[in-house]
């Protein structure tokens, strides 16, 4: 009898273990929850707005009893979304957008959502338009800018009230700053994405300026080599590389460029050890967190022109874009939630948490200290505005581009070889 009981207990335990193992293996219970509500997932990689987004979601969930939205944050969102698409488990709404997903029909066409487009700045609508199809697969709620953030006091001490507009003037200014014992330009090159951004804003900026953002995007999408000319030894890419190597050789950028991190950069900037850094608006919150009094000293400028037929450029691009999965069963509910999220009062809250201006015409948010807002406005009005390149080859990321710059700064490539390597990597990345 005892043996039988032992056997039964063993059997029960084995059964319990086996059942436990498979508990998590079933298809996720997406769609209608146990309480009869439609359950939606908002997938995001934006850490800075988690709390404010949760507040808005809570308000939305409390405002009605048919839909329940949950926010899912992933640090490495661009990689995680790839796995989700591969597993056919795409979230209903997502803030990650890639050209290859648009080309693969993963996003719902939002072109007909007039209630959003009528409120959006026209240039931001253009930025949200897929150049291949002319349709909109995402709505951006914010704009962002990238350029040089500089310490106004340091520049003034070497005789500059205004940021230089050409590379030669820029070089002269950096030399004067160096003579004062201050690192002129801090590049945190251990983080490849940052170096990738330099390419995105400077040589790609030149191409976008030369052909216009839309035509440049088309050229990138079609890999129009006559227009892109990445490998040209006298082209924008090689000249950018020559200038960067010159600045490094002359000690006009930080010595530890290949091992420095963004935290090092922020610390050196707020401590007055460096005069400037290149970055997007998102760096403002880190700078102010490191030194709440720094805001009044910060200046913002466009990238100086470095090719003969070029003007200073500044990134003025879309940010916080929302897409709806083409495969979600609850498109109507997704739109209902986005209608709520895009309300002016919610967007004001979101912009102030994100530290980024709104893309909607009817949202008035205090997203940064007044002096910075004014400077950003001046710079965007007086220089050539460029957008992001979403039309990059699927197999050649901004991170990959940054690693080529690391090799350049490490002396592995000459500027000409760098340009050729960049062209080869771009071509290889195209399927």
């Amino acid at each position: 009898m005892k043996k039988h009981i032992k056997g039964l207990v063993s059997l029960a335990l084995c059964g319990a273990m086996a059942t436990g193992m498979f508990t998590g293996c079933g298809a996720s219970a997406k769609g209608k929850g146990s309480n009869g509500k439609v359950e939606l997932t908002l997938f995001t990689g934006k850490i800075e707005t988690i709390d404010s987004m949760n507040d808005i979601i809570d308000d939305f969930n409390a405002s009605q009893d048919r839909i329940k939205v949950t926010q899912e944050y992933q640090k490495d969102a661009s990689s995680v979304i790839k796995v989700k698409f591969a597993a056919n488990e795409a979230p209903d709404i997502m803030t990650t957008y890639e050209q290859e997903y648009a080309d693969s029909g993963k996003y719902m066409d939002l072109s007909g959502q007039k209630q959003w487009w009528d409120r959006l700045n026209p240039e931001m609508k253009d930025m949200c338009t897929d150049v291949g199809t002319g349709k909109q697969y995402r709505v951006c709620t914010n704009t962002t800018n990238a350029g040089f953030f500089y310490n106004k006091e340091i520049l003034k001490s070497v005789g500059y009230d205004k940021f230089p507009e050409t590379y030669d003037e820029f070089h002269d200014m950096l030399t004067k700053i160096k003579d004062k014992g201050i690192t002129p330009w801090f590049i945190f090159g251990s983080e490849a994405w940052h170096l990738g951004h330099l390419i995105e804003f400077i040589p790609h900026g030149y191409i976008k300026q030369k052909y216009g953002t839309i035509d440049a995007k088309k050229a990138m999408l079609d890999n129009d080599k006559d227009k892109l000319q990445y490998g040209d030894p006298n082209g924008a890419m090689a000249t950018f590389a020559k200038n960067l190597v010159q600045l490094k050789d002359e000690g006009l950028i930080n010595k530890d460029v290949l091992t420095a991190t963004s935290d090092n950069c922020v610390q050196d900037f707020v401590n007055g050890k460096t005069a400037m850094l290149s970055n997007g608006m998102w760096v403002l919150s880190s700078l102010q967190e490191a030194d709440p009094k720094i805001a009044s000293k910060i200046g913002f400028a466009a990238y100086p022109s470095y090719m003969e037929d070029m003007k200073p450029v500044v990134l003025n691009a879309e940010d916080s874009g929302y897409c709806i999965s083409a495969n979600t069963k609850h498109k109507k509910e997704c739109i209902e939630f986005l209608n709520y999220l895009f309300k002016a009062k919610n967007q004001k809250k979101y912009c102030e948490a994100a530290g980024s201006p709104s893309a909607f015409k009817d949202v008035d948010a205090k997203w940064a200290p007044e002096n910075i807002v004014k400077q950003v406005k001046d710079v965007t009005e007086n220089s050539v505005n460029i957008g992001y390149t979403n039309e990059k080859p699927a197999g050649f990321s901004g991170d990959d581009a940054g690693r080529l710059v690391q090799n350049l700064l490490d002396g592995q490539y000459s500027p000409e070889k760098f340009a050729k390597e960049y062209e080869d990597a771009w071509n290889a990345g195209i399927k």
Partner: protein
Amino acid sequence: MRSKKIGLHTFMAVPAFVLYGLFFIYPLCKGIGMSFTNWDGLHPAQFVGLQNFLDFFHDKRALHDVITTVVFAAGSATLLNVVGLIYALLMNSKFKGKSFARMCIYMPAIISPLIMGYIWYLLLQPQRGFVYHMMLRMGKEAMFPNWLGSFGSVMLTLVLVNVWQYAGMTMVVYLAGLQSIPVELYESAKIDGANGRQCFKYVTMPLLGTSIRINIVTNIIGSLSVFDIIMSLTGGGPGYQTESLSIYIMRMCYGSKTGYSTAVAMILFIIILVPVLISMRLTRQKGDD
């Protein structure tokens, strides 16, 4: 009665077999199948035969990563065994504070290699790290070597950090082997006139055969599949100079070359299998068959 017991025991092993099948055999078979396709994670996979494997031999970056991985593994596996054995011999002798020393040696092994990489980065970072500041205080900052500056120095740093972290684990295996050697053998060797070196060569080493084999095999496998310590200490940089094959596989997988990345994973499997088989053959003892 006996057959009933075997039936029940076999049944109790089912969850383990299911787990093994589900999380090892199934992904392995799926991976082998995928390595013959051009799957990018988005579009339906198409069979491409051996193309991915042929492409690998024309992929400069992948071939460079093989060299990086092999250099790291050669240095790391060798040093781990040497240092682990020295530690084990020390811990097998009698001295005060042995337990504390053993704990200090083993402790790095229980810390995540990712965290370990970041800690060493903060220690060794040029111009800013703890070691640099210590040397600056002593007025010797000019002597601070840029450990993360060139391929050679970065590789050396990676190997030393890996050895520092895992030597404790190697030591434990050697220590178990040493403690299983009967004391009588040493006593009789000494009676026969053997000195310390001869005892080590003719008694200790032959009887440590199993431990040596375990350590060589596990260290080769661990070093050739290195990922996290490189990822956190150098990110594979500068450029792709210190990128290991495991990191390359991950980057290709997320870079829309999922089919190709699984083919490279199969090649890595063979790269690991060959030295493991050779070392098992070389360390085979009489009676093993």
